[in-house]
């Protein structure tokens, strides 16, 4: 199925709407053949606009170009780009059966009926939908519809597979299981995939690379690990996971904050703030840590316990610990943070 997969290259792609809104600032981007790139960001950040430009449903502003492999497809409408697209609402055709939906792209391409039936039944098997081919789409559950939409997009052996928030309409548990299915599918097929979501869990799980977007710009693009552990901007750090942020005054490489002081890394020894992830902090004896405070609340989450510690003066931090002890509200505790876990980012 990956025979058709193509790399994608965007050059100076921007989008300004007729009312003057700049949905997307000029952007250069490359997606390798077979790679899954996830655009992640809050609503209105431009990720859907970008997807629509790649799909051919929207044109970039003058000067922007889109390539699939060596072909400049900028002026090609979507029906001639040979993409597969999964919509948030699935957009299955109500007038067709499940099998007819899946085979629609082949029918348009004038593939003969027998071949179409074979392809459809192969895809039905692959998507665990065997036996549902003759159903009407309104007789399917949400998860089944989602898989039909994916099968329909894959049936045309697309050069690029485009997924627009495909799991948003489903409940949490189904989302998780489909996420695993989609991940296995994309890896086994080797199809070039562009995936748009506002859910960081999905982005982390599915992306070979993740592009975090905000206000029409790509804030950072990198592997999920890079995005998570080495965010390059305060926006990325805040958007992905939970981040503690402490501000104070810095003297001699020591950041004095409410409740204690943190030793800053040498390279950034003059910053007035530092950030760290909840799981990079440790709870220690009240006098043994760099910071001291009192427990405000503790939530047992199963694999970890999330402890909120008040450092005084309305500064509080979140610590995730896997220690098997109970934390009581009001207990005095010390907090230690490894110097290599501290992040210093200009906002």
């Amino acid at each position, binding site marked *: 199925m990956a025979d058709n997969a193509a790399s994608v290259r965007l050059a100076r792609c921007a989008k300004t709407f007729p009312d003057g809104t700049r949905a997307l600032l000029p952007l250069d981007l490359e997606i390798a053949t077979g790679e899954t790139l996830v655009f992640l960001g809050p609503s209105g950040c431009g990720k859907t606009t970008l997807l629509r430009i790649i799909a051919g449903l929207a044109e970039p502003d003058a000067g922007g170009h889109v390539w699939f492999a060596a072909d400049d497809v900028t002026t090609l409408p*979507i029906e001639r780009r*040979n993409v597969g697209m999964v919509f948030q*609402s699935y957009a*299955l*055709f*109500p007038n067709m059966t499940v099998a007819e939906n899946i085979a*629609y792209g082949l029918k*348009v391409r004038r593939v003969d009926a027998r071949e179409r039936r074979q392809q459809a039944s192969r895809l039905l098997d692959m998507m665990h939908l065997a036996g549902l081919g003759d159903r009407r789409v309104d*007789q399917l559950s949400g998860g089944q519809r989602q898989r039909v939409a994916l099968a329909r997009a894959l049936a045309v052996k697309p050069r690029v597979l485009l997924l627009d928030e495909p799991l948003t309409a489903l409940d949490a548990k189904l989302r998780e299981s489909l996420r695993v299915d989609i991940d296995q599918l994309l890896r086994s097929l080797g199809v070039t995939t562009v995936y748009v979501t506002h859910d960081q869990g999905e982005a982390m799980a599915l992306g070979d690379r993740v592009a975090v977007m905000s206000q029409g710009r790509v804030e950072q693009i990198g592997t999920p690990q890079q995005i998570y552990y080495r965010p390059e901007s305060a926006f990325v750090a805040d958007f992905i996971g939970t981040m503690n942020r402490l501000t104070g005054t810095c003297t001699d490489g020591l950041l004095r904050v409410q409740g204690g002081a943190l030793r800053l890394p040498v390279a950034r020894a003059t910053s007035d703030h530092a950030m760290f992830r909840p799981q990079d902090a440790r709870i220690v004896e009240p006098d043994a840590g760099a910071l001291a405070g009192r427990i405000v609340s503790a939530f047992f989450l199963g694999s970890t316990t999330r402890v909120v510690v008040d450092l005084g003066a309305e500064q509080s931090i979140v610590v995730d610990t896997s220690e098997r002890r109970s934390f009581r509200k009001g207990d005095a505790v010390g907090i230690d943070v490894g110097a290599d876990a501290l992040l210093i980012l200009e906002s």
Partner: protein
Amino acid sequence: MMTRASPGMKRRGPGPRFVAQLLFTVLVCAFLVVPVVLSVLAGLSENFFVGVRSGLTLRWVGQVWSMYRDSIFLSLGIAIACLAVTLVLGVPIAYVLARRPSRATRLFEELLVLPVAVPGLATALALILFYGEWRGFRASWTFILVGHVLFTLPFMARSVLAVMAAIDLATLEEAAASLGAGFAARFFGVIVPNARYGILAGALMVVTLSVGEFNITWMLHTPLTKTIPVGLADSYASMRLEIGSAYTIVFFLMIIPLLIGMQWLSRERTSSMAKRHGG
């Protein structure tokens, strides 16, 4: 004895309020239905003034058939032509109105409905003033067709538009396009089939209205282009009462299947929509 006053007791039979409501409903129905029944009986009796006692006959219906056969076929022909034209114009108009909502398209939609609001006589007069000089056109049945299209087009367009507005047409079309379908394939393979209930309902409406249209047609017709309702007026005015009534029967026979079809269709559509939302 007040049944409502004793909640512990079982109610015996319907209360007085129910009886009053039933009586009122029956009276209203009778008020509407009795004249229709009388008219039908008049068309089937030997002599209306003597009454049914004079005996039942199909003679008058037969006479209507022999005198106005041409009107019946002309009306059917015009209705079918009118349906064809409103389909070809109405479905694309509804599509554009649904896909490109703007001030201009809304204004157009209002204009489209104008011939329904303006008295038919005025529409007809305008047509005669404007096209009356073209003798061939003026004298042919196509002149009446133009009037009927003006009058029925909004019903087709609105009926289709209502269905198109209820489905996410834009995304369905984008999905079809993403799979390689060009405009024609999308329009006939996805848009039209998914608007089929609106198209069918509009079609029945157009045929019913065209067959029954009188105001415009009365002004536009010539002695050689008489439709059923014009013939009806003609027979009421100049024939004996039994023939006029028999004509009513013929008219009923043509229009009632269409009305039943419309009812059936609207029920089909409601239940299929309910299934879609329930599933």
